[in-house]
């Protein structure tokens, strides 16, 4: 089973490298997320079946191992994809590098425009996920958004107790 999962992940990655990365559907956040999510569900269900029918040799440890392997692969892949696709800090470095190469000052107004577009885009995204609601021109947290915001705030305080409150 373990070799089968390793081979499956190699095929999953190979199919992306050889064919799927050129498709428009997998150049969107939603598309690439679904490609990995569907695969994780498939591997998870196969793992559960093995854990039930091969409980002696595979069991819960086998299921955890298989899901962890897929989780590490997908999380690493999606983090790199997401940074390459829209990392704001990376866009700033690229902006400074381009300005340096052409002997000009960095065009911060263009970067600010990216920030403005990101804000608008993210508000729409958060609204779609049901985390914020926009009524009468006001943006407010929904109950679910409030819980997520509380967790993010707690995590932020845990990791950066005296740091900046904005990012």
């Amino acid at each position: 089973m373990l070799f089968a999962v390793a081979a499956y992940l190699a095929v999953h990655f190979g199919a992306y490298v050889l064919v799927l990365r050129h498709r428009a559907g997998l150049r969107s956040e939603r598309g690439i997320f679904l490609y990995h999510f569907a695969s994780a569900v498939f591997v998870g269900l196969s793992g559960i079946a093995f854990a039930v029918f091969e409980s002696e040799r595979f069991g819960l440890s086998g299921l955890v191992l298989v899901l962890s392997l897929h989780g590490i692969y997908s999380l690493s892949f999606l983090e790199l994809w997401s940074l390459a696709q829209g990392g704001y800090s990376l866009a700033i470095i690229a902006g400074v590098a381009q300005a340096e190469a052409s002997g000009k000052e960095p065009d911060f107004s263009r970067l600010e425009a990216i920030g403005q577009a990101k804000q608008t885009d993210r508000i729409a995204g958060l609204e779609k996920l049901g985390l914020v609601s926009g009524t009468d021109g006001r943006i407010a947290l929904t109950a679910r958004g409030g819980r997520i915001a509380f967790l993010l705030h707690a995590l932020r305080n845990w990791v950066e107790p005296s740091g900046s409150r904005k990012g």
Partner: protein
Amino acid sequence: MALAPALLSFALAVLLHGLAMRVPLRLDSVRRFLLIGVPLGVALVTVSLARFGPTIPGFAPILLYALLCELYIFLFTLALSSVSATMLTMLRRGPVLASEFASIYGPREMVMLRLKRIVDNGLIERKAEKLAVTGKGMKVHLIFAALRRFFCLGS
């Protein structure tokens, strides 16, 4: 149970990371976590393989610990720097008029905060009032330019 040491090691790593963030060190939050997480991981590998050998119960806790650590790093970097996460935490103070949002969390401020972090991390430096990408910053820039091409995300 074979998986318990992984969960305990992870809980200890998170606890020690929180304490390490309250100590004055010239290391960013990710490096501080690695300083704690890597030795704990090495200890877990040693204990797990010594106890179960190179078997499924031997490898499962190691991979679980690695996944939890990666997830934790992802979540706290998200909480610290993601635009969406910052918006959500800001909205905890109360509803905001959509037209006023940009003045509270303005794009210029977004750029300046990130620029400060990039300079602090040694990717960009100020040379005679001008900004310049350092060698380290150029490496990062080239790596991500290559990744953009690999993912077919345009130049």
